[in-house]
């Protein structure tokens, strides 16, 4: 294969994943949390595509497309939730929703 080895792509994917995870854990605005979630999903996608190329198996790309579709659906629902929250004049801050507090 031309260019860097599969391992390099995988390391980039790992970076993306942890960056997304960090974003989910740190940020309080739900919109930014959703964006970070997207980054994580994309990191996973990259890993899938890299492995698909490594083993010359198209199934990885199918999986990646499925992930993309699911990500899209999730964004739809998530944004719908956020809009509903905003319509009720709730603060857009995930820390404020702690009624499950024991």
């Amino acid at each position, binding site marked *: 294969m031309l260019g860097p080895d599969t391992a390099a792509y995988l390391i980039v994917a790992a970076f993306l994943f942890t960056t997304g995870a960090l974003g*989910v*854990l740190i940020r*309080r605005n739900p919109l930014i949390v959703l964006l970070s979630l997207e980054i994580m999903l994309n990191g996973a996608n990259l890993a899938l595509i890299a492995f698909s190329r490594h083993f010359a198996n198209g199934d990885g790309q199918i999986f990646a497309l499925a992930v993309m579709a699911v990500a899209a659906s999730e964004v739809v629902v998530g944004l719908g939730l956020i809009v509903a929250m905003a319509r009720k004049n709730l603060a857009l801050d*995930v*820390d404020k*929703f*702690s009624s*499950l*507090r*024991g």
Partner: protein
Amino acid sequence: MNAAAWTCLLLPLASTVLITVLGGAISRRTAGWISTLSSGAAFAAAVVVFVEMLSRSPEDRSETSTAYNWLVAGNFKVGFSILTDPLSVFMMLIVTGVGSLIVAYSLGYMDGDDEERRYFAYMSLFVFSMLLLVQGGNLLFLLIGWGLVGLSSYLLIGFWHERPSAVAAAKKAFIMNAVGDATMALAFFLLIQKTGSLDFEVVFAKAGGLSQTVLVLVALGLLGGAVAKSAQLPLQTWLPDAMEGPTPVSALIHAATMVTAGVYLIVRTHPLFELAPNVQDTAAVLGTLTLLIAGLIALVQTDIKRVIAYSTMSQIGYMFLGAGIGAYANAMFLLMAHAFFKALLFLGAGIVIHALGGEQDIRKMGGLRKLMPKTWWAMLVGGLALAGMPPLSGFFAKDSIIAATLGREDWFGYVLFAAAIAGTFLTGLYTFRMLFVVFGGEQSAYVREHPPHAARDRLVEWSMGLTVAVLAVLAAFGGWIQFANVWTPITDWLRPVAEPLVEATGGQEAIASICAVAFGLAGIGVAWWIYSARRAAAPRAWAVLEHKFYFDELYNGLFYWPAVALSRVLDWTVEGPIVNGSIVGVADLTRRAGGWFRELQTGLVRVYAFALAAGLAVLILVFIAVR
């Protein structure tokens, strides 16, 4: 004979059960009648037994009847059995006879009390327990009766349980009796171990083969029980406090019957005591000391019932003296006469207390002679009997014991003789002090303000009056059953069971009687001089006497405060850290742990997500390391 004996035992028990089960369904007076009639019927049964026994020859008068095997443990068997022999019949007659008179008196005395039914149930329970004690066919059932009379005493002393003093007195009586129960139980354990049985015949037969140490220990254990039950030195402090109970209770339990159980015990187990003569002598010494000390304390008492209580303590000292030197029949004779005249005195005092609306302080009384003449005559008879004046019962009974001390003819006997004679002086003095202060002289201010009121109704008047009259007759003439060496039906009756160790000669009897009567008259004379004729002022009471020789304080210091201190220490070291720490601490720890875990539920999504991420990191680490 056995059927009658069982009937006598079980009738009072049936009465208790009946009154308890019927509860509020019967009227208060009906409960009283049930109790009285059952006691009377028990007396009738005892008479039947007596008559039956008379018809037999003296060797044939002892019978044990076993209902069933109550306890079987290997070779050790104890049956629920009763012993019908001259000694037990003697006691049965006294217990049921005087008992039914006193229960009848209670019909009037306790009339109107809210808890009358409970009272009569307890009284019947007591009669049953006392009968079980004297009829018990083996030592174990004697002990069962012993414990039950202690229980009945506790229940009846604390009858008016709203009064803290009554409750405290009941506890004191029970606990001191429990000390005696414990020593008796220890003695019984030794007997079981060494002789393998608690039946009278077996124990007495095998006792000769036991070592002296064992015999002394057993006899000491029995003596401990007797001393506790009969309120002798050193376990005497509960008896005066027991006067918190109703007056008939004081009469029946703490004068006529329960406190004499100790004397009965010594007479019943006299073979064991005779094998440990030092212990028997100790019993005599304790009795003598008690009779002197109690007599001295009685001189300064101001509560009419306490005077009579200390008098009881003193007279039982005479009985212990008699049993201690081996004059068993004489001791039992005094037991009988004492039952008559002491019950008479108590019941008469009860009439006075009732009439004055509950007042018991003799300093507030005076001049009741004109207001209550019949009571005065009854109490006079009782007082003269107590002081040992002829021809009343006390004279015959007490002098026989004093004569027996002379009959020993050794220095020990002479010392006891001197003490006993001194006791008669004290007896005369304190008895007539009480009589002259209460009945003689002018009416006190209190009496003028609270004139004795008439009885509420005929039943009350008759129940209290008639029973006192009967007892007065018994106290007067009851002593004519035995006279010195000349006529000794009681000694002969008891001879198969308890052969006396000493018999006084005619001369010794005469000396004893003359001295006793003389000193008794001297005591009466001094009382008259000071309290009636007012020719001299009453001396100030010594503090030692007023504080009852400081026995209460001594026991307080010896037992109560150390126990309190020990329990405080234990509370601090054991209760706090260990008990609380372990049990409560576990609960506390669980609660706190729950609290900590609760903190984990922050409700924040970010925290949960972080937990996920951290867990994942750890898991991957584990996988890497393991691979």
